[in-house]
């Protein structure tokens, strides 16, 4: 299955870094959004998006709110979501897990970790 990623982060730098890392591990098709609100809009207008990589702390709609919003709809209930964030406290990770994020990366990350998490999510899908 060809993957089309939606990379959601309010930092332009991080979006580029995630895009470069995806490219380094062989994934080139992606669209970007600067916050959760824009992500929801892109998701509703682009049916080919089949993987989301999102930050947590963002304006308008945060990454966690985005995940909860996505999971509340039947259409996207099983859409793979990988959270990439600076939040590394136990309560944060548990909150993400409870919101049904598929996997979790704490920044800074390497392309190897990104590949490992994407593979794990795809294997369990």
């Amino acid at each position, binding site marked *: 299955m060809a993957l089309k990623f939606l990379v959601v982060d309010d930092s332009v730098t991080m979006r580029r870094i995630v895009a470069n890392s995806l490219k380094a591990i062989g994934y080139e098709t992606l669209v970007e959004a600067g916050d959760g609100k824009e992500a929801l809009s892109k998701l509703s207008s682009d049916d080919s998006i089949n993987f989301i990589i999102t930050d947590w702390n963002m304006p308008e709609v945060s990454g966690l709110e985005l995940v909860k919003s996505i999971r509340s709809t039947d259409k996207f209930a099983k859409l793979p979501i990988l959270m990439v964030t600076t939040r590394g406290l136990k309560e944060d*990770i548990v909150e993400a897990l*409870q919101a049904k994020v598929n996997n979790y990366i704490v920044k800074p990350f390497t*392309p190897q970790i990104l590949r490992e998490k994407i593979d794990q999510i795809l294997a369990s899908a």
Partner: protein
Amino acid sequence: MDNNSNMDQVFEKLGELKSFFIFGQKVVPVIQSIIDFMRDVVPLMEYVNNSIQDSASKIPKAASQINSVTNATEMATSEILDIVDSMAMDLSKIKNELGDLKNGFFNQRVALESFGNQHPNLNGQFEALQSGLSIDDLETKVVALEEIVKKIENDSNNITLSLQVQDITSQQLASVNHLIHSVQMRLSKLMNDLSKKGPVDMSDIEAEDENTRSATFNPDARYEKNSNKQDLANELFNSGQKTSQDEIDKLFGK
């Protein structure tokens, strides 16, 4: 008799007056020290008040400077990423060229072998030709160049990864800005409430201070290359995904 009684009253009053003077003698130094204290404290209070006003007026500039730093580092990071991207494209071209060279060497070897098979009696000239072309040496150099290209690619990947520090530090700076904003709010409220001479109520500001979980920054953001936090995330996700949602909620007390 009446005169005696009057005199008694006079002496009694004189005694009271004397006690009053004695008390006054004791109190006057205390009052004097209070006046001295006030004389010292009033300018100090004025100084504190001026300092608060001065600090409050400087805060917006400090916040603006922090934003400038964030914008400048984001711009610089973007420029570095542009250069890294350009390097990656050049490296990709070099890799393709080196690949073509290796294919060329392979084709030359095949052609030489075919030539040698077709002309078996060249009296050592074939070997001289082979030696002159030095395909093996050139191929070894190409392989070494490929290794160098690989190393440069790896280094440029590491540069990209290190640039994540920009996002992390910008969150730390946003957190500092939030604190500065909070201090400014407190000072403004303090000045306002002091002028009203009423009790100072900070409850709304304190509520705002605590509301950082939904903020656009993480006050605990750290640039750490050790994997402790990632290991914790792996552990929680590995154990969490094996259990039901109800069990997760129960496990973490929700």
